[in-house]
């Protein structure tokens, strides 16, 4: 599903250049659950942003579903992303002014779906995430675990083939964390490919394979299952 070769990403500011990703290469197959680990600042988030088509790259190749997307412009990337990818962040990134329902609905708003179908889909997902009773609440009224469940619901609402999660349990206690990890596993079991950045060896155990990074490069890969 994803194949990157010699991926390069350099951040340039006035004073300095940071090479965030340095000739990074790996492959992720459809249906895989991959954990990415490594010390802070080694380039994990940068990698996820590029995989998520949120950022452009400075070198190398990125084949997504058999298509080279390295040279895609903003618009094409955006289309590809909306159809295929869902995101989960450490800090949830929900919109405070919108209800749970509206937050989850967000990715569907920018598709051609009719309102009725949207509602059906959102309710389906909320049901699945056991958030129906929170439907009309605002994020600030929920616990951290609930908020992250909303974020996961948002990530999966348009049935993406790939979910990118950046430290999804980083802001959660272990009970809530485990709950979220269980959700991830379930999603993966239903066929969704997952790439998850994590600091926690415990969480990483839910995955099939761990990619360990250092200074923008892959150091080792462990296959778990």
């Amino acid at each position, binding site marked *: 599903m994803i194949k990157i070769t010699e991926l390069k990403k350099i951040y340039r500011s006035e004073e300095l250049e940071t090479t965030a990703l340095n000739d990074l290469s790996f492959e992720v197959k459809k249906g895989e659950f991959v954990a990415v680990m490594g010390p802070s600042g080694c380039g994990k988030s940068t990698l996820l942003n590029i995989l998520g088509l949120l950022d452009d790259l400075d070198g190398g190749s990125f084949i997504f579903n058999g298509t080279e997307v390295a040279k895609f412009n903003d618009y094409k990337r955006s289309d590809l992303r909306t159809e295929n990818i869902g995101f989960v962040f450490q800090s949830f990134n929900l*919109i405070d002014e919108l209800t749970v329902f509206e937050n989850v609905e967000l990715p569907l708003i920018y598709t051609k779906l009719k309102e009725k179908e949207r509602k059906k889909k959102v309710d389906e997902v909320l049901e699945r995430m056991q958030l129906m009773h929170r439907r009309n609440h605002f994020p*600030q009224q929920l616990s951290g675990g609930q908020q992250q469940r909303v974020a996961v619901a948002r990530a999966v609402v348009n049935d993406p083939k790939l979910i990118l999660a950046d430290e999804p349990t980083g802001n959660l206690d272990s009970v809530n964390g485990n709950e979220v990890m269980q959700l991830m596993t379930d999603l993966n079991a239903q066929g969704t490919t997952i790439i998850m950045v994590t600091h926690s060896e415990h969480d990483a155990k839910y995955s099939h394979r761990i990619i360990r990074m250092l200074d923008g490069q892959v150091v080792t890969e462990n296959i778990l299952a």
Partner: protein
Amino acid sequence: MFYTLISLIGLVISMGAFVILMNYVDFESHYDDFHTDSDQIYRAESYFTLNGTVADSWATSSFGYAGAMKAEFSEVKAITRINFKDNERIVRYQDKIYRERMVVFADSNFFSFFSFPLLKGDPQKVLREPNTIAISASAAKKYFGDADPIGKVLDITTRKVVFHCAVSGVFEDFPPQSHLKLDMIISYASTSQFERDFWYMHSAYTYVKTNSEADARTIEKKFPALAEKFKTEDAMRDKSWEIHMVPLSDIHLNPLKPMEFEVKGSKQNVRFIFVFALIILIVGWVNFINIMTSKSIERAGEIGLRKLVGSKMKHMMIQFFIESFIINFLAVSVFLILMVIALPFLTDLYYSPMFNQFWQRPMVWGLLVLIFLLSTLITGAVPILVLRKIKIAVVLKNRMSFRVGMGKGLRHGLIIFQFTAAIVLVVSTVTIRRQMDYMQGKDLGADVTQTLVFKTPAKTDDYEGKLEMITEKMKTIGGVKSVSRSSAVPGEMVDFFIANQRDNDPEKVSVLTEMFRVDYDFIDAYQLKIVKGRNFSKSFGADKDNSLILTQSAMKLFGFKNEEEAVGGFINLEGQGNKKYEVIGVLKDYHHLSLKENFRPVVFLMFSPWNMLDFQYVSVKIQGANAKAIAGMLEREYKSVFPDSSFDSFFLDEFFNRQYKEDVTYGVIIMIFTWLTIFIVCLGILGIASLMLLRRTKEIAIRKISGAKPWQILKLINMEFIRWVGLAIVIGTPLSWWIMHNWLENFPYRTEIEWWIFVLAGLLTVLVTGITVSIQTVKNALENPVKSLRNE
């Protein structure tokens, strides 16, 4: 800094505009109140009724009113009178000859009745002796330079009489806020007996002092009975002669009546400007409050707000007040500096009353202090109230409060107010402008273009002969199409009313019509349209002193059913017994005055009833471009025959359009302040939009990650504002229609308020808002969402 600047600029403009406009409102509404006892002074204005309905309403009274009222009404504390018959006179001192606009006769108590200061002479004595005159300081300067004018003799000439008057006093030029603007005042004792007690010529202003308003009303009630004793002639006998005691302070803003000379104000325009002043001030405040609260919400953050308890809240309040005090102080200072720089240009440029003696007016300073205090209070207090409310909402954590509670309710209300104001102002500006264009563009029915008019000279021997002679001579000048003499010209009231009757009218109804003396050429020269009958002609010997031509309005007033009946009909003129005058033609109604006035009942004639209807103007119709050269030749011709008169000429189209000057200026004022208001509204949008974006950076990033395209982000933010514009359109459209509908009601001839004006106003507001918001938003819309989130 950016926000402070925006709110500062908004405040400077709105406070400045408020002070300027309110000063103008104050200026216009306090005419004539510099006289001591000004609240006890009334002008007796004639009001004729027939069976209870008004037949005529003039600002004037007859010469005889004052004497009779003083003798018969105990309520009259003091009375004084001005006789302005032939007010325009040629004044001469040695080789200095000028035509003075307002030379009048006044009773000897004039200077003790009013408080016009005398620079030279004793108020009790100046106007006591016959053939004495008081002149204005600027007239004194003009005729005598630095020499002492007292005792010097001026020759004061009308077309029929010459007075030789010794200067007995010099008065300060009448102040700008005086409805009377006199150049020279001759003692009443100089006039003939007829001009002292005659009841059939309304060429005087009578001013009355009473002890109370009630006394003034009593005088009004008693007057008709008094008049019965004096209206001994036939004319107007059927009418009831009443007077209105009009308070001195109302005169300036009352609608123009026949025989008023001063430039009038308009109550309605003043009221409009007052409202505009308030609107622009509130828009500025709204702007400021909006930005301040948004900024403080930003600053405090939601968590911060929750912690805002007790002492911290107090601290914040103090901080707010200090901040708004400083900004308001800055705003006032900037305004003062700008005015010091701009005032010299402004006084030259526009409407002088607005900037007249700007710094000397206590009102300006009063307003500045008031507005500064008020503004500090409001802009300091409202944000605090808003924050308080938000805090409670946050603490309660109730569901709705998250959505609406963040001070949004108030801020949105304020935004809607601003947009509504913008729409109302745009609709008003366009409508006022269209009305002005309509009035100035409409066919008058009389041709006033390419016309040079000069005023007839002062008394000489063989006056009419000489005037006719130069008329004929001027016709031979190249480029001159026609030369014609008349007692008035379009744009100047015909102004000679007499009460006439249809011959053999069984009911003996006399109607007041305006008598317009012309010569053979006038009607053709002005291209007045003869609907029926014929023009005056040399081939009909009787025309010279026996024939009349009526306008359609006059025809109807006399009770003729139609033109067929009128032509060949007969009319008896006031004071001429049963003598029959034949109607030889009927003219299509034409606009003798501006379109602010209705068509008038005018009777054209070639002779001078009672020997009082002089030719006052000579109209020269010219062809080709060289008007200046022709004017020069006319003057030489004139001077050679009338060396003792001044040559005073003007182009008739300019003269005619001066009637619109006030309204055009008014339109320009409204327009300027409309643009200023829209500018402030833009500043406001700019500030609010940028704060909104600051608050919504994260949201925008999340939306982009969720698939929103840049244009969808632009749309999202724009819609936030356009919604309020939409609401403002819903409110502003009927509101502005109503306002303008009422305004137009004042004009007998008016444009329609077309639907597209509202569309234009709406579109303009949407467009301006859209552009302003988009400029702010485009950067956020294009930004990589990853970056925004990273900075969170």
